[in-house]
């Protein structure tokens, strides 16, 4: 869903004069959404900008992604990075057509990561 949102936003920004680059990990959703420029890294969702606590991997992905601004010269161009996640069991889980609904209940109250975040938002008069 995030990849769909990114495609829609990228197309809107680009159509209004702002060049965009989408950094993505769901190839089929991006191919359907056709953003102007995309970089694809074949990692499990949630790690598009690199492996956690692996600055070398993260910086490598970002450098390659940003160089795409100059390397991709055709609308809809995509750069596939060679990075490999390593352990591959996530692939079967992500492709599975069975299993529980992993989404959170859809209510309309702010869902703070920590209870203290609510107090911080109150203190900043944001809430």
């Amino acid at each position, binding site marked *: 869903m995030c990849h769909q949102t990114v495609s829609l936003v990228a197309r809107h920004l680009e159509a209004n004069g702002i060049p965009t680059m989408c*950094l993505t990990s769901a190839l089929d959703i991006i191919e*359907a959404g*056709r953003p102007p420029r995309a970089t694809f890294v074949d990692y499990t969702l949630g790690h598009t900008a690199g492996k956690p606590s692996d600055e070398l991997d993260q910086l490598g992905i*970002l450098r390659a992604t940003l160089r795409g601004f100059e390397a991709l010269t055709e609308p*809809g161009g995509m750069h596939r990075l060679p990075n490999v996640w390593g352990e591959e069991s996530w692939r079967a889980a992500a492709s599975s057509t069975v299993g529980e609904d992993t989404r959170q209940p859809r209510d309309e109250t702010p869902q703070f990561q920590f209870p203290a975040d609510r107090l*911080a938002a109150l*203190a900043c008069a944001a809430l």
Partner: protein
Amino acid sequence: MTVNYMQAIAARYLRLGYTPYRWFVADSPPPWEPLVKPLNQLRLGLLSTAGTYALGQVAYHYKDDASIRQIDSTTANADLRFSHITENYLVAAKRDPNCIFPLRNLHQLVREGLIGALAEKVFSCMGGVYSQRKVRTETAPALLAAFRAQAVDAALLVAM
């Protein structure tokens, strides 16, 4: 072999009793705006769809929250938070935000000279919005205005 998310998600939720989701399939070629400057002179904007917020801001809600957050690009890693309808993808990001919200790393690339500058405010949204209408009429125009206010030359959009 890459994961076919659209097919897998449609089949999974059909089994759970939901009507099949109609994914966005572009019916026109992408728009195109050429870069006005070389990469090492670009003032770059950032958007994350991971539901990122900074300590002191209001978290996202899970029912098609189409709002955006403007986050100071100097925000410390320790003050970055996440709220997203698919929290299961954010376990690592809550330990190391840079795997999905690369703020620290973009500052590093400015220091290296790969890009010219990072905008003072960077942006987030909660990308798990099912209504494409809301994304088109609320999120996208709000982000366009926000990026324009930051006078960015280009924008990096990181999908979760």
